[in-house]
């Protein structure tokens, strides 16, 4: 287990103030925060590259705050590839083994194993500047993981990749984590956080403002920063099921007994569904429209927002709609009233997880 105890660092414009959190063995922990708030500084403090001004870092109950970088057994992979440009892929991957004076046989065995795992056999003798973004990240991961680090630190590893590679690397990261690797990942992308994290820590103004599962964070945001993310109230974990009929582009998203129809090209599997409150339509009677999702439910909450009114309706799950005060009056909405909720399949955003 990794434990940070009141870590404070002041470095130029950044100031991290008494950062504390625990990461359990095998956990995927994502630190989510805007760019330029010192997330990398925190990661480098864990790795030992920056010495914190205050606080302690424990790894498996051992205080590693003053332990040598080389002896911490913590690997780091950065956003921009950090492969050594004067070495080929093979030389890069075996670099840590040479540092640790592994025998030739050990190097060969470990190399073969990691190369198979990442499916990078064809890249071994390629020069670094001939690799694509996704290949670079794969090699960087392979080079770090060949040392079997206790903790893998990832500094925005997907930010510089295009969409295709991003999904591939995400799936690799999930697999590594399923295999037992503890991961601390920092990002400014909430979708990335949702799709990968077991738990998310929100970083704001040099502090951790909230820690919780994606569900807890997005359903009950403790700060404006998290609340600024789109459609936070309508956030559901469930399973997407692809319909096999070729003339339909609609998939089913099942949350317990409830099924939403959504427009998505995602493959079948579990994940999260996000619906913006602004995209939910409320009516007193069922209406015929292009909205493929129509549910009857009871109003359980009416909250006045900065702009408009947020209506929470129980349709089997809680769903929030943002409407105007005029609509509230016109539809005569009150607590306990039965109303209809509808939204278009295209309004739903699925994030694989």
């Amino acid at each position, binding site marked *: 287990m990794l434990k940070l105890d009141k870590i404070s660092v002041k470095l130029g414009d950044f100031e991290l103030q008494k950062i504390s959190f625990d990461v359990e063995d095998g956990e995927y922990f994502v630190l989510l925060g805007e760019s330029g708030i010192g997330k990398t500084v925190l990661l480098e403090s864990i790795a030992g590259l920056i010495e914190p001004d205050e606080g302690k870092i424990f790894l498996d109950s051992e205080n590693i705050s003053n332990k040598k970088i080389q002896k911490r057994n913590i*690997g780091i992979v950065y956003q921009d590839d950090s492969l050594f440009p004067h070495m080929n892929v093979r030389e890069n991957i075996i670099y840590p083994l040479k540092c640790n004076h592994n025998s030739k046989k050990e190097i060969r065995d470990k190399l073969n194993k990691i190369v198979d795992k990442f499916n990078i056999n064809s890249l071994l003798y390629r020069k670094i500047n001939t690799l694509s973004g996704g290949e670079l990240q794969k090699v960087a991961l392979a080079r770090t993981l060949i040392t079997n680090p206790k903790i893998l630190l990832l500094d925005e590893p997907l930010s510089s990749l295009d969409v295709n590679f991003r999904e591939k690397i995400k799936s690799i990261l999930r697999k590594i984590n399923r295999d037992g690797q503890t991961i601390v990942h920092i990002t400014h992308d909430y979708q990335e956080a949702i799709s990968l994290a077991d738990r998310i820590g929100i970083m704001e103004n040099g502090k951790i403002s909230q820690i919780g599962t994606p569900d807890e964070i997005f359903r009950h945001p403790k700060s404006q920063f998290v609340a600024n993310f789109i459609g936070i109230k309508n956030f559901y974990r469930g399973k997407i099921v692809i319909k096999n009929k070729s003339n339909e582009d609609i998939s089913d998203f099942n949350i317990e007994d409830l099924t939403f129809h959504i427009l998505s090209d995602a493959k079948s599997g579990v994940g999260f569904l996000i619906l913006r409150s602004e995209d939910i339509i409320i009516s007193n009677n069922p209406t015929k429209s292009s909205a493929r999702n129509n549910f009857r439910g009871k109003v359980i909450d009416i909250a006045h927002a900065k702009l408009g009114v947020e209506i929470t309706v129980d349709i089997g799950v809680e769903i929030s709609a943002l409407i105007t005060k005029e609509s509230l009056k016109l539809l005569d909405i009150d607590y306990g009233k039965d109303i209809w909720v509808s939204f278009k399949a295209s309004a739903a955003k699925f994030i694989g997880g």
Partner: protein
Amino acid sequence: MQKNKIDIFQLILIFLGGIVLLFILAPLVGLFVNTEPSQFAETAQDSEVCSSIWLTIWTSIAMTLIFSIFAIPLSYILARKSFPLKGLVNGLIDLPIVIPHSAAGIAILGIVVKGTILSNLAKKIGFGFISAPAGIMLAMAFVSIPFLINSARDAFGGVPERLEKVAMTLGASPVRVFFTISLPLAWRGILSGLVMMWARGMSEFGAVVIIAYHPMITPVLIWERFTSYGLKYARPVAVLFITICLILFVILRILAKKKNYVETR
């Protein structure tokens, strides 16, 4: 209209630049043109000239290699570390470039004359500085070392610090990081600095002549022949020396032109 303006401006640039090139080339070409092949051949067989050129080459190469052992680590420190008075140290390194070289020679003479710590130490080991190759090397190094330090410092500065950090998290010791990451990635700049230091040292006259008139390095020999016998006798020596320097310089520049990994990415 605008196109014409650009053309005229470019013509002015080319004209002004051309004058500079002519200024550099004309005296050198004149030197070659005014030297008869027979004189050139005769000079090439002159044992005094040959031993002087050989002395100049080996002392300049040796001083470059010896002083690089001290200069490269200093360059790395200047590129990577922050410390009080760093600006002053950087300024100090450029000092040998701005002071007159004869004055530099006088200054060096002050630390190598009889009775100084350096001269006593050298005497114990079995060599001396005055009128000796060691003195020549010291004078050459003093005036040329800024070229290596500045070039190597910039080259180390160009190596992404992140690569060094990653290497450490992968288990590399600071020594291994220096030799396997920083040095190879900065090598092109360092090599270029070594070539510049060597070239500048080899052509030094002012500082060397004060410490070691004898044995004569070629710049001193050219001066000696000019003052004693005149232009006719000095010119073939200069031509021969310039030819050899140019050949060596071109070869080293080609070697130094190896692909720079950091810049090409």
